[in-house]
Each structure stands twice: as C-alpha cells, then as structure tokens.
C-alpha cells in the first residue's frame, strides 16, 4: 500500500471512532449503508478489474508503443488516445508506463493523449458510470474528456 492509501485508512478509522463516540446508532447505520454501497457496486467493479486484466493481456501496452512509435505523430496521437480510452489504468501505473513510452521513442503528443484518456476516459467503466450517473452524463463527460485530452496533448506538443 502506498502512503496515501494508508492515510486514507487512518482518516477513515479516526472519523469512524469519532462517529462511534458521538452516536452509536448512527454509526451502525453508516456501516450498514457502506456494506450496501459495496454490495451494489461489487459485481460491476469486479467486472471492470477482470476486463482490464484481459485487455492488457490481449493488447499489451508495449505492442501499442511499438506500433505507435513507427507512425507519424498525428496518427500516433489518435491511436494512442483510442487505446487509452479502451482501458483504464490508475495514475500510479500510468506515469511509469508513459515514461517508458517516451523513453522508447514515442513523441510527447501521443504520450500525453494516452496518459489523459487512460485515466479520465474509460470504456470499461461506462456500464458502472451509467448505472450511477445516467446515460446522458456518462456520454457527455466521456466524449468531452476525450476531445479535451487530445487538445491537451496537442498544446503540450507546442509548449515542450
């Protein structure tokens, strides 16, 4: 566990104990609510996790990097943005991964497009997002995130 996850646990534990002292009944209710929340999301989250594992095995990021490196920058940007969209990788892995891409000779613009869509847009999380926020919200948020991810990437190319 990284430092911030440990902090998250400690903060939660402290708040929980505080809540327990202030109102026992309310805290028990909170626990019930938390388990209810967990149950309602468990199947969806597990599906997301195993789907990510599968996608990463079928299309390893190294293959993408190899493919993208040999193409012109525009095409590379589109391809890497799309690949980033399909899967969802936590920032914790995304940064080293993009670091490897840049080291392997992929230009900055496709790498940034990849990084942003990787974490912000996720086809794999769409079913869950739709369930929680509705179709309209999910569609608009993901489309806009995709467009702006490319825009950020292009501007990065100008500044770097």
């Amino acid at each position, binding site marked *: 566990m990284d430092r911030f996850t440990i902090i*998250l646990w400690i903060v939660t534990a402290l708040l929980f104990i505080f809540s327990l002292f202030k109102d026992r009944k309310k805290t028990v209710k909170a626990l019930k609510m938390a*388990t*209810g929340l967990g149950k309602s999301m468990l199947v969806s989250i597990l599906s997301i996790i195993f789907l990510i*594992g599968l996608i990463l095995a079928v299309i390893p990021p190294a293959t993408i990097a190899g493919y993208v490196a040999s193409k012109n920058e525009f095409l590379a940007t589109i391809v890497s943005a799309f690949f980033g969209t399909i899967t969802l990788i936590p920032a914790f892995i995304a940064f080293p991964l993009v670091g490897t891409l*840049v080291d392997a000779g992929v230009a900055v613009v496709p790498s940034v497009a990849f990084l942003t869509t990787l974490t912000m847009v996720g086809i794999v999380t769409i079913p869950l997002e739709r369930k929680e926020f509705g179709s309209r919200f999910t569609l608009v948020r993901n489309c806009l995130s995709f467009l702006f991810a490319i825009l950020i990437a292009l501007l990065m190319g100008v500044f770097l």
Partner: protein
Amino acid sequence: MKILKLIKVNFFAFLVLLAYLVLMIFNRNLGIDSLKNSQYYLKEMIAIMPPIFILTALLDLWVPKETILKYLGSGSKVKGVFLSFLLGGISAGPIYAAFPVCVMLHKKGASIRNIVIILSSWAVIKVPMLLNEVKFLGVHFMVIRWILTVIAIIVFSWITSLIVKDKDIPEADIELPLLAINSKACIGCRLCTKNYPQVFKMENGKATIIKDYKTLDEDLISQTVKACPANAISYNPETND
C-alpha cells in the same frame, strides 16, 4: 427464467465471464496472463474501496445537505470549483472510487459542474502522484501538463453543466426509502389499494403511495407487500427512525 434475469441484470459481468471462458478454451496462456494482470487491480480495489464506502456513508449521515449545497452547490462559484479540485486532487485510487462519493455529493446538492471536476481531477490531477510524475516525466512536463489539464477541466466541466441537468442523473438510493413502489413493475391490479387503502391509491392506472399516511401497521403492510403479484412494493423497516 431466473438465470436469464440474472444475466440481464449483470450483463456486463456476464460478457466478461464469457470472454474469459472463450479465452481459456482457445488460448489458455493468454487467459492466465489476464488473470495475473487482474491481480494488481484486485489488490488495489481491496485497499481502496472499503474506506471509501465507509467515508461516503459517514459523510452522508453527518454532513447536512445545506453544507454541501453551500460549498459545492451551483451557487458556490469559484469557491466550489477550488474545493472540487482539492477534493479530487488529494484523493487516492482509480476513477471508479470517485463514483460513490460523487453520487452522494450530488444527492446532497453538489452541482453537476463540481461533480465533473471532482471525477476528472480524481483521474488525472493527483497530488499523491506528483512525485511519481516528476520522477518518470520530469518537472517541466508535470507543470505544463497540470496547468493545461486544470484549464481543460474548468472549461469542459462548464460545458457539461450546460448539456446535462440535475434531472438527468438518477436519484441515488443510498438510503432506501421506507416504502416504495416500482412503477415500472406495477401492473395496476389494485390489490394494494384494496388491502391497505389508507396508504395506497391509484394514479393513472398505477399504484402510488399516499404521501401523508399516518402510521404503518406492520402486519397489514407486510401482507400487502406479499400480496402484490408483480413484487412492485418494497418495504424497508430498517430505515424507520
């Protein structure tokens, strides 16, 4: 029929399971690789989600609606935008960890714009990942990416709030209502209105709950719930307090 219903409810999970089955039959090694890849994400989920769920529930019960509305509501302006970036930025975990938190915040009055900011910054602008980004991509890269991304999020969260309205987002049922009727399931048979006319009435061919019923008779209500042929009535006595 029951299996079909189960598949329909968990369609996405079913597709993933099917993909794994196919993979295991035709390319076993790739299937095993996939499972190995999933391991990391599984561990991450177990480390992040329990405290997230408990925090969400605690915030839901302790923080009054007015507070959320004041700090993250549509009237919160710059202050709300800043707070949303802070909330998303300091958080740990992948974007789906933000879903229960944001659903709860929206239920309590946070604006769509601020929800989008929290979700997006939760995904890409992470203070916990700052050093990581510097280590792998350099300070120069990090600073420019942060500035551009913050500007982009400010702009597209605003666009989202123009297109998506509060009513587009389904009501969060974190807290189960004491008594509810699933109007999609109701077949309009009127049995409930006959069994318990003080609580149920018909409206446009569907049963509804009379808003200001006094007290519920435990026996009568459970009888009515059981009698409904479409199982459209849900009664949650635990919510009663």
